[in-house]
């Protein structure tokens, strides 16, 4: 069964901490994405990557960075966590030929 795996389902971090959210896919997909989901705002794209070591800013990249050292892994980094980054974070991947995304189960991050 093809999968996108997010390392944590729930995470609680303190303000100012550096936070790493990990995402691994086993489908050999070229494209990977990070979204955050907030009530009433839908899914907002933070960063995406079309290839290893490549990254592109999405709609709301401020306060975040990403790393893609290997094709299967795409990490989202909160450099200094703040309470307004409390959210559900969703990772997704897709093939270069398109066809839609496969999503992970999400990480619910709470920053206190």
């Amino acid at each position: 069964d093809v999968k996108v795996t997010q390392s944590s389902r729930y995470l609680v971090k303190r303000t100012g901490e550096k936070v790493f959210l990990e995402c691994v896919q086993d489908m050999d997909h070229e494209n990977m994405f990070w979204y955050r989901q907030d009530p009433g705002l839908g899914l907002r794209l933070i960063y995406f990557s079309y290839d290893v070591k490549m990254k592109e800013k999405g709609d709301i990249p401020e306060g975040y960075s990403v790393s893609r050292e290997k094709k299967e892994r795409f990490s989202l980094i909160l450099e200094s966590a703040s309470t307004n980054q409390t959210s559900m974070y969703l990772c997704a991947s897709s093939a270069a030929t398109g066809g839609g995304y496969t999503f992970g189960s999400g990480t619910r991050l709470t920053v206190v």
Partner: protein
Amino acid sequence: AQSVTQPDIHITVSEGASLELRCNYSYGATPYLFWYVQSPGQGLQLLLKYFSGDTLVQGIKGFEAEFKRSQSSFNLRKPSVHWSDAAEYFCAVATLYNTDKLIFGTGTRLQVFP
């Protein structure tokens, strides 16, 4: 710029009733169209997609969607809703020039009463 509108934030239906969730898009050409479902606390699961051809698309869990070019719509339907269909539903589009990047609507939350 391309956009997706789901005009209904919240819909409530009785179990066994029919369902239609609306989706409208803004794009000059025919886009690629998708419907996803998200159960509480979960990621999104692909229900169905339309690229070309027959405008009525069948998906998983008994759902179907119809692409209407004249109305720029891609509405999701199910003839008889089950309690397990309670979830949030997202419509998404991708353009021919950027098939890798989906644009999502803000979602419709479906509540099902017994």
